[in-house]
């Protein structure tokens, strides 16, 4: 990836992070930590990988993305807004009564949301269903699902993995946001899911491990995944929960609360400064 392209993506990722902070601040709740750790991935997906049409969210041949870790809705909404599915102004109404942006993704409420999620473990199964639909309909679209590293403690995730491999779904990519933290602490302390890569390989997936904050590594991983035939792909991303906001990084406490006014200012200033550095002052 050339440096201009990388700067473009980094700038977008910065704006996604600002959208996360904007949303959770105005909502006075929400899940910034796990949203921030996925921000670079969502940037890559919505600005490099996914074939979608913001003016035609239900385009039948679109690529699908299921946010199986549904509590990271703030980053999905920020990405959809940035991509043009709806005005960014809506982010200020996240979780408010009557808002088109519900606390967890709601496909009936928000253009661009491919599946309602929130109850962990279910989204990835629905993504298997979408991939199956693509196969029997002889469609070219690809299906992507993002799971959390706590989420994969749910047995249903492994039912989904088993079935994706059984059905030879090479149009299916599962991404795991391995930020190593869940509500009650480190995932390895709460219910150790390791070794993740060996498990996914054993389940029949073409498995890669990347730095989830490195666009070159993400690009390489998705490019390799797109060439795999006859079996699904898994990308395990090593990430930092809360990445991009210094006082939220690697902190389980920022799993599920909104920043207060002072924290909002600090976070936004950090992100604005970073954005200015990336763009060299230009917007």
């Amino acid at each position, binding site marked *: 990836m050339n440096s201009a392209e990388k700067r473009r993506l980094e700038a977008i990722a910065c704006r996604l992070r600002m959208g996360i902070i904007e949303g959770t601040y105005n909502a006075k709740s929400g899940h910034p930590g796990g949203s921030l750790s996925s921000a670079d991935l969502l940037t890559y997906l919505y600005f490099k990988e996914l074939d979608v049409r913001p003016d035609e969210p239900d385009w039948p041949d679109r690529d699908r993305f299921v946010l199986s870790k549904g509590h990271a809705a703030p980053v999905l909404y920020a990405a959809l807004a940035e991509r043009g599915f709806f005005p960014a102004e809506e982010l200020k109404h996240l979780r408010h009564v009557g808002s088109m942006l519900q606390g967890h993704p709601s496909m009936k409420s928000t253009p661009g949301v491919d599946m309602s999620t929130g109850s962990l473990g279910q989204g990835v*199964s629905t993504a298997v269903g979408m991939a199956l639909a693509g196969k*029997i309909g002889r469609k070219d679209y690809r299906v992507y699902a993002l799971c959390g590293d706590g989420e994969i403690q749910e047995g249903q995730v492994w039912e989904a993995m088993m079935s994706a491999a059984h059905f030879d779904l090479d149009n299916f990519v599962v991404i795991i946001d391995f930020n190593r933290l869940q509500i009650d602490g480190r995932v390895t302390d709460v219910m150790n899911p390791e070794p993740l890569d060996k498990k996914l390989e054993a389940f029949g997936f073409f498995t890669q491990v990347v730095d989830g904050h490195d666009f070159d590594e993400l690009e390489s991983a998705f490019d390799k995944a797109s060439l795999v035939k006859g079996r699904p792909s898994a990308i395990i991303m090593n990430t930092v929960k809360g990445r991009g906001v210094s006082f939220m990084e690697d902190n389980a406490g920022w799993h599920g609360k909104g920043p207060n006014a002072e924290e909002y200012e600090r976070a936004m200033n950090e992100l604005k400064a970073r954005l200015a550095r990336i763009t060299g002052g230009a917007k």
Partner: protein
Amino acid sequence: MSEKKAATRDGFGRELAAMGHEFPDIVVLNADLSETTRTGYFEKEFPERHFNCGIAEANMMSIAAGLASAGYVPFASSFAMFAAGRAYEQVRNSIGYPHLNVKIGASHAGISVGEDGASHQCCEDIALMRTIPGMTIICPADEPEARAATRAAYHHDGPVYLRVSRFATPIISDWSNKEFEIGKGVTLREGNDVAIIATGIMVPEAVEAAKLLEAEGVNARVINMHTVKPLDAEIVTRAAKECGYIVTVEEHSVIGGLGEAVSSCVAENCPVPVKRIGVNDEFGYSGPAAELLKLFGLSAENIAKVSKELIGK
């Protein structure tokens, strides 16, 4: 009583296979039970549209949601215990909440599962499904009605829970010249001494009970309430007004099913005495289906007895 018997699961399975020819958007999902739920008929003719998900009902229900989101009309089948029980939350969150067009073919409902015993005798599924907003629940009375209901479920826009049985039961209906209307109770027999409102395979028993009552000078109205949700409040309220006594019958717990749906409706619209016949908040046990149904009071004789007691005869 008609000597012709068939299982409602057969009606479901055969109609599904027939519809497979007419509607290319139907897909069928199974959890290792295709032979016994009769989705195997569809599987044989349309293997490319049938997905065995193995013994993984939660995954199956969410997969069905994904298929529905892509424009297919999935029929996802398992035993009632696992379709409504184990996968309850998937039905509620993946299918119910986004109101996706998935039809759940739940077979082996109730006590009449028989020898498999309590772990498989699901008497709670109607209650569970009733609590999901937007869910339509249909319990066909016999094999022809199961066919009509399966077809109606396909044409209905939204999630449907179709409850069928393992056990072969009497055929009493003929839907060849009538339109099956979801949400509309069917008066099978007029009468004003007591109204017997039944669903599923208890409907033929209710019809028999009315004959027994007639012999004793009691004129019972019999209503086939195939759709438990949405309940036909009009026919229930009219029955309360005109009969003054209601007996409900279902192969299901007395908690949360047809009986309580009718009781709530009656209490709010036209309070009259109601007696619920069903499984009395207890687990089932092993035995031949016919014997168990009698032991649990799910028989024409008991329906007649309870009706007479209710009206004080």
